[in-house]
């Protein structure tokens, strides 16, 4: 079974995000880049499906500038068989629909039985791609997946998605799109052997033309980014303890409206 895993490279969760001078992007200097954590669940699940079935191919895909190769190489180190890098300046301003069209074109070329995404990237939290790609392909899509089991004949999948207070189990025909939720699995560390072997695996570079598409101007663009206002400092209520408690209760009720 061939499984395609689209991934996104995002700033490390520990990054101190600063808004760039033009207020439309973040300052990228000094950022450590990682694979978006939900996408790691997707890579892990794809590897587990391959291992469980004893055969198959896991292909990692990403769209982005040169630095994205590092993230793809990490997928290869985890165990993905090969990678595809859609690396074309024409996609520099891509919105989610443009990205979805590019990924759908890759999927059409590769013809996998399954495409596993993370449920959203942790940088802009759009969560739009899995549904948009599925729509473009005419495939079913299932979000917030916590567990899955593919039928022995490889024709269908049963997947449980997280809903308030429980699990909702669906059956879908393959091919289909899954979007992984935290809890689906515990992603493996790349082994040293995996890291050493990653450079021998293929990362194929594709341009828009290779996919037979001409990116259109984005229909969605960032108008402005704003930093959150700094949190107001805490307040220490001093003085006599009885007075202080009375003041605390008053402040909680009248100012914070917490009680």
């Amino acid at each position, binding site marked *: 079974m061939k499984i395609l895993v689209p991934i996104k490279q995002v700033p490390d969760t520990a990054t101190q995000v600063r808004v760039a001078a033009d207020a439309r992007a973040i300052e990228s200097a000094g950022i450590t880049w990682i694979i978006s954590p939900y996408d790691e669940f997707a890579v892990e699940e794809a590897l587990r499906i391959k291992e469980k079935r004893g055969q198959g191919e896991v292909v990692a895909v990403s769209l982005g500038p040169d630095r994205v190769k590092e993230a793809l190489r990490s997928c290869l180190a985890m165990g993905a068989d090969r990678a595809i890098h859609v690396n074309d300046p024409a996609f520099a301003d891509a919105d989610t629909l443009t990205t979805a069209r590019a990924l759908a074109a890759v999927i059409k070329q590769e013809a996998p039985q399954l495409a596993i995404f993370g449920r959203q990237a942790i940088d802009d939290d759009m969560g739009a791609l899995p549904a948009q790609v599925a729509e473009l392909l005419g495939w079913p899509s299932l979000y917030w997946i916590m567990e899955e089991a593919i039928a022995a004949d490889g024709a269908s999948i049963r997947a449980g998605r997280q809903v308030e207070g429980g699990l909702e189990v669906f059956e879908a025909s393959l091919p289909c799109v899954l979007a992984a939720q935290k809890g689906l699995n515990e992603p493996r560390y790349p082994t*040293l052997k995996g890291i050493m072997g990653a450079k021998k695996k293929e990362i194929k570079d594709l341009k828009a033309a290779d996919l037979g598409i001409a990116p259109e101007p984005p229909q969605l663009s960032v108008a402005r980014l704003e930093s959150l206002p700094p949190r107001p400092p805490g307040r220490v209520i001093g003085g006599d303890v009885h007075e202080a408690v009375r003041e605390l209760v008053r402040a909680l009720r009248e100012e914070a409206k917490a009680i």
Partner: protein
Amino acid sequence: MHVELTEEQEMIRAMAREFADKEVRPIAAEIDRDARFPRETVRRMGALGLLGMTIPPAYGGSGADAVSYVVAMEEIAKACASHAVILSVNNSLYCEPVYKYGSEEQRQRLLVPFVTGEKIGCFALTEPQAGSDATNQTTLAVRAGDHYVVNGRKVFVTSGRESSAALVFCQTDRGQGHGGISVLIIESGTPGFLVPKVEEKLGLRASDTAEFLFEDCRVPVANRLGDEGLGIKIAMSSLDSGRIGIAAQALGIAAGAYELAVAYARERRSFGVPIGQHQMVQWMLADMATAIDAARLLTLRAAALKDAKKPFGTAAAMAKLFASETAMKATTDAIQVHGGYGYIKDFQVERYFRDAKITQIYEGTSQIQKLVIARSLLGGA
């Protein structure tokens, strides 16, 4: 001159750091308190390929270079120095010599399971009267047909109780002095191989340090590593490599304590400002950062020389000397930055301080490193 790591070495650092932060750091205080050998995480280090990093894939290893080994060691030691020494001994003092001097049969039998983490190995050189004076060996191995009969005592064997096999340095020909020293690989459970004692230590408390007693212990000749009389050569070449590992461990201890000190200096307030705003604290942090960087460069240089197959013994001695002195100084200052809180166990830095001390002592004391360095400067004079 390049001082940047390759993408692959960066990936190895990232993997080791993530593993150390998620699996090792959370148990470091507890295994130190209980002096408990962390079998579970050691096995996981084996599965990740960290226990026989430089051994070729044909023997279960990853064929990584010495620079990668330093980078991984530093990250593990930042979280827990006990894990780091278990790693170092298995890599540098067991797997490397067995690979380098072992026969094909020995490599299959006594190397492969020790690379994968199924088993771990140790290195038994020191005797009660033979520490820095390592050639003064009294453990005796007398040839009797296809066996040697071993009698003697070894002390301070890192990972001694937990190991499945030990490189044991023995006199096979007393008349030859230190030219008569040979190495036998003695497997645990061999009759006459006893482990009477595990030491109570100041630091590295989760690594077990054992005493070995050999009483008419019969060891097959098939377990001799290299020819008779090759013992001191094997010991010295293993220790040259081992020093790179210990330098990296010391570097990690220093860097780990430094990171804790920086975090504390940002958080803790006195006289109305974070203590990092005080010049005296800044002074200590700046000195720590500078010395740690120097130790890292010395250690990476020694590793890079080894990778280039150039002589690296002196560079390794310099790295080990400087990194271990830096570890002691940096952990002392990290406690100073923490003030009274640094002296209690809640804040971890006291463990780094206790762990640092041994790096000035084992695999050649700081004094022995100076001797090694001076000899290389002066030649035979």
